[in-house]
């Protein structure tokens, strides 16, 4: 769930007077709750440690790795590190497509719910958007692969025919035509966009709702139209919140597995042709597709990839949290 951080209560919590003998139950309960908190820290440390332990063989002994894993082919430019390079590129490319589609829509939805929709309906309409987040990713994958992709195929073909000169929409160089399957990076990006919209719009909505009323009313009193009020009062106040929300969406898109796995026809290149099939793959989808048949060395190599994904999402999420929390510090306007 992606709420913004709960506000710290400014009040000092009352403390009970110490009884003559501090009760044992009291201490035990305090210890229990602190213990649970420490468990969380241990779990995170364990995630990093165990992943590193399992990845270690693949990281250190590349000769044995190359000999034991059929899909690692250093002679064809597909050593483990090169594959990770392709996958990181594919992951970023598809996530960026998703964000380019999702961010404007999500900001529009957030504005609709915070400033445009009738007050009475706003929360119910917001709930409708939250339902999008409740649908399991495997159902998105199934729908994307069996319904959306066949629907989009002619659209993609038209894009390739009409805007083929534009590098992103270039036709497949080997056939000179659009992808016959439609299982391309753009299709995966569109489905990911649908999945991250509720996350981005939920955070953005909260930020927009916190715009100081006085700023809005001042803008309206000066004769601003509603749009001018939004531009003058709401956007400047919410800008960093929108950026943080987008990064949270990025964090989700980077780690999304099933939808990409089921929609994308995979391949390993650095191609920017988002309408060509068999050119891209993402880290998570690659792991999901190779894992069931992998031997011990293959698993080790895949866990190395998982570690790379873990580190990337960790950095993105930390940056996002930092941006969102910085906004809280500097919103001293109200």
């Amino acid at each position, binding site marked *: *769930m992606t709420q913004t*951080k*709960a506000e710290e*209560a400014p009040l000092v*919590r*009352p403390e*009970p007077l110490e009884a003559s003998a501090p009760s044992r139950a009291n201490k035990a*309960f305090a210890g229990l*709750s602190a*213990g*649970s*908190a420490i*468990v*969380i*820290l241990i779990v*995170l440390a364990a*995630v990093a440690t165990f*992943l590193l332990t*399992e990845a270690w063989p693949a990281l250190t002994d590349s000769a044995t790795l190359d000999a034991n894993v059929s899909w690692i082919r250093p002679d064809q430019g597909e050593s483990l590190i090169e594959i990770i390079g392709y996958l990181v590129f594919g992951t970023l490319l598809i996530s960026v497509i998703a964000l380019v589609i999702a961010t*404007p*829509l999500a900001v529009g939805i957030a504005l*609709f719910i915070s400033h*445009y929709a009738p007050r009475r309906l706003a929360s119910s*309409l917001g*709930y*409708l*958007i939250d*339902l*999008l987040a*409740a649908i*399991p*990713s*495997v*159902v*998105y*994958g*199934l*729908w994307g692969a*069996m*319904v959306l992709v066949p629907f989009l195929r002619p659209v993609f073909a038209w894009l390739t025919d009409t805007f083929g000169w534009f590098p992103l929409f270039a036709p497949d160089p080997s056939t000179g035509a659009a992808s016959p399957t439609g299982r391309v990076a753009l299709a995966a990006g569109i489905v990911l966009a*649908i999945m991250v919209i509720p996350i981005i719009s939920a955070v953005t909505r909260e930020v927009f709702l916190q715009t100081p009323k006085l700023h809005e009313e001042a803008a309206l009193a000066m004769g601003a*139209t*509603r*749009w*001018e009020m939004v531009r003058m009062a709401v956007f400047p106040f919410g800008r960093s919140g929108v950026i943080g929300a987008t990064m*949270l969406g990025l964090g989700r898109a*980077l*780690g*999304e*597995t099933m939808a990409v796995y089921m929609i994308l026809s995979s391949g390993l290149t650095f191609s920017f042709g988002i309408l060509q099939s068999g050119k891209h793959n993402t880290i*998570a989808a690659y*792991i999901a597709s190779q894992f069931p048949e992998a031997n011990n060395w293959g*698993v080790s190599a*895949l*866990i190395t990839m*998982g570690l790379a*994904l*873990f580190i990337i*999402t960790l950095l993105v*999420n930390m940056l996002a949290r930092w941006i969102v929390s910085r906004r809280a510090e500097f919103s001293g306007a109200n």
Partner: protein
Amino acid sequence: MAIADSTTLGQLSTGRRFKNGTATALVYSAFGVALIPLVWLSFTVITKGYKRFFLDANGEHNFNLDFLQQSMRGVVGGSPTGGILHAIWGTLLITAATAIISVPIGIMTAVYLVEYGRGRLKRAVTFFVDVMTGIPSIVAGLFAYALASIIIGPGTKTGFTGAVALSVLMIPVVVRASEEMLRLVPNELREAAYALGVPKWLTVTKVVLRTAIAGLATGVTLAISRVIGETAPLLVAVGFADSMNFNLFEGRMMTLPVYIVSEWKKGPAVCNDPTAVCVPEITEYRAWAAALVLILIVMTLNLVARLISRAFAPKAGR
């Protein structure tokens, strides 16, 4: 926040009126566009999902509930039999185990953060709970797999491994939701309890947690509805199975999301034997029907969560 009719003060310039109108139209259509996938997807899942329920073992068009009462044991080719009983049990058991692990840890951590925490440890826990919400689900699966490989033996895939993976995803969600609920409990209640000489741990358990119980239940239900649809970690940590397995600690298990993927992966069934009843689209029917069941479960949980919070909200609000 009604926009004053500007005619009394003078006319808006055409440019400004145009911009305002365009922006309004764009904002409304953004919302409309977001509803398209929701409606389209729900429609597809319902219209494609019901078909398996109207196909009996002879390939005739008859309503039956075989799909909910059979596993996939011994189901081969395009035989219009086979169902999700094993997957439903797997999902129930794994999700229950996940909840048993995550709910106490999550709620107690929230209690720590709200009632006890101070200083460095509190800041560290708050920060790392945020970090934990960002762990990709497949990485959680890899972690559980690595843990089981090292502790039990390489290649161990059991239901419990899956529960560990899902717990990594569920704990931060429970902490976040519970923390917010506990903060809503008015300080006066705590003060009143202390004034009566109630020790702190009893105040927390009998006053604070009891006041927030509806909110906690809502948060936990929503968290369950989130993890119940997770696929990637279970694919990695639990694997596939065709038969019933009630033992979380031994052998692979099937779960609903993984069932959807595995049926989808099979592709259309090949009909070679003219004597056997064969429906080529049966795998597709099964995948959609399982998706329908999964969505119904998730939506029911969401609805329950909303009902709980609505049923208890007025009392807490006044």
